[in-house]
């Protein structure tokens, strides 16, 4: 197909756009405001104790005083329980994303390069954690690793239990990030390395892995983001003790005690961590993948 002249590419915006697209756009922006932007603004404003006062009757902006109460935020975030919970979430998420980054490459390798009976089942098992509701994932793990474990592996209220749950829910992200890239690699390059005398391990580390890095890191980012915010799958296996209270559980416990302002403060801190991960993953993928929008 011949390339369209550049003026044509912008064509839709030139003709009668404003009414229809404008109306639709306004609807979409209102909806986003209703369910995302306003709630998050309310959350951050409660979390940072933002108060807005006016000492006059007018709407002139210089009459408005905006004050931020960072003291309350800091107290809520550095409370012993909060610090422990955030720390637990951070190190668990880092370990889980790292373990699944390695296992993800291995699993993707087997899925792409290996052939055996029952491979379809392996393929389906990778997608299952993505489709399973998180609370079901929690119950599923408790069926085997709970207090009445049929194989006598009781991970209830242990960090191992939390880790199993997080490995379970992040598995598809780590595998599916790597698999298509591995599939698109040309096996002839590896064959060339082999004929030049490189062993299998050396070929993998010097030839295959360098082209996989961006995908592995992308999967790492997705898995980390998912793990740090995970709640449903770990809420049952974590039980009710402080040692296994992750950041999300801690926030939930605060809401059960109606400590909404503290919950907002800790949520704001978590929000910042998650947004940082989201943005850096986005920057990363834009840098290494062709993405046109």
């Amino acid at each position: 197909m011949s390339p369209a002249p550049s003026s044509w590419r912008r064509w839709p915006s030139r003709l009668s756009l404003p009414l229809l697209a404008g109306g639709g756009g306004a609807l979409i922006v209102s909806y986003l405001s209703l369910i995302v932007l306003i709630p998050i603004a309310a959350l951050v404003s409660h979390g940072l104790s933002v108060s807005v006062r006016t000492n006059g009757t007018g709407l002139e902006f210089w009459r408005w005083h905006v004050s931020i109460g960072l003291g309350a935020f800091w107290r809520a975030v550095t409370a012993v329980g909060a610090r422990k919970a955030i720390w637990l979430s951070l190190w668990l998420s880092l370990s889980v994303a790292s373990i699944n980054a390695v296992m993800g490459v291995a699993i993707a390798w087997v899925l792409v390069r290996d052939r055996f009976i029952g491979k379809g089942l392996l393929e389906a098992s990778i997608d299952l954690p993505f489709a399973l509701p998180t609370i079901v994932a929690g119950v599923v793990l408790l069926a085997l690793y709970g207090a009445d474990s049929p194989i006598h592996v009781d991970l209830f209220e242990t960090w191992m239990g939390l880790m199993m749950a997080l490995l379970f829910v992040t598995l598809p992200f780590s595998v599916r990030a790597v698999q298509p890239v591995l599939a698109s690699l040309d096996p002839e390059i590896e064959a060339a390395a082999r004929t030049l005398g490189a062993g299998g391990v050396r070929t993998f580390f010097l030839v295959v892995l360098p082209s996989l890095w961006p995908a592995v890191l992308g999967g790492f980012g997705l898995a980390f983001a998912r793990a740090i915010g995970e709640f449903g799958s770990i809420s049952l296996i974590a039980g009710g003790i402080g040692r296994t209270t992750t950041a999300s559980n801690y926030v939930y416990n605060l809401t059960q005690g109606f400590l909404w302002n503290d919950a907002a403060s800790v949520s704001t801190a978590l929000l910042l961590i998650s947004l940082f991960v989201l943005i850096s993953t986005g920057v990363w993928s834009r840098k290494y993948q062709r993405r046109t929008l």
Partner: protein
Amino acid sequence: MKNSRRWALRGVVLLYVGVLVGLPVLFLVLKAFSHGLGAFFAEITRPEALSALKLSLEVAAVAVPVNTVIGVGAAILVTRHHFAGKRFLDTIFDVPVAISPVIIGVALVLAYSRIGWFGAPLATWGIRVLFTPLGIALATMAVSLPYVLRSIVPVLLEIGTDQEQAARTLGAGRLRVFWHVTLPSIRWAVMYGVTLTLARTLGEFGAVLVVSGNISGVTQTLPIYIFDSWDQRFDVLGSYAGALVLALMSTLVLAVLALLRRRERKLSVDLA
């Protein structure tokens, strides 16, 4: 690769996935039926379980159509139009799934409940959000927001605007172009996104738990019922049974997704 090494790698991978996914799922099925078929059906036909399933379906019946329309509209907006803040709009869609669902719940409470920003005016109109199905619907809509958009955008970018432009030059209006040209070429992608949205709406737990107040028979969705059975009522069998029902729904979802992926691949071959 040497044969022994191939076997070792295959073994490690199968062991890992088996211990992490396969065996636990197998034992869920065994435990759900551990007291026989009769006990399983007695558990899933309890009035609380049925009303939880009903609420889950009702919430999905609201959230899925709304998010589909918004997703399709936004996808066309970001792929077919140029405007300031496009990148921002695109990113906002990902925010609800990038943060903890518990945070979404807290944010909705602080915006629309009695203790939040708009609680007082909403209360005077008789609208309550905390501990009501309305709050559950809002939370569910938030967490299932991006799936339709994310499914369609790559397809819209790939098919380009040539056919739409041709239809326009032949005198078709915007709506007509949408119904007769754009929508037919993205329909499988839309179905894919709708399936993902449905899966997420039926399974959402964290955000709903915070806003629902967990009132049995009134604000319990199926995932909340499963949690409540285990954590509060110590009815482990009810929990296993409910989880198995939801797991079967997810398996159905996976099958539909696989089918649509096959369609989508065929479609892209047709285009080429």
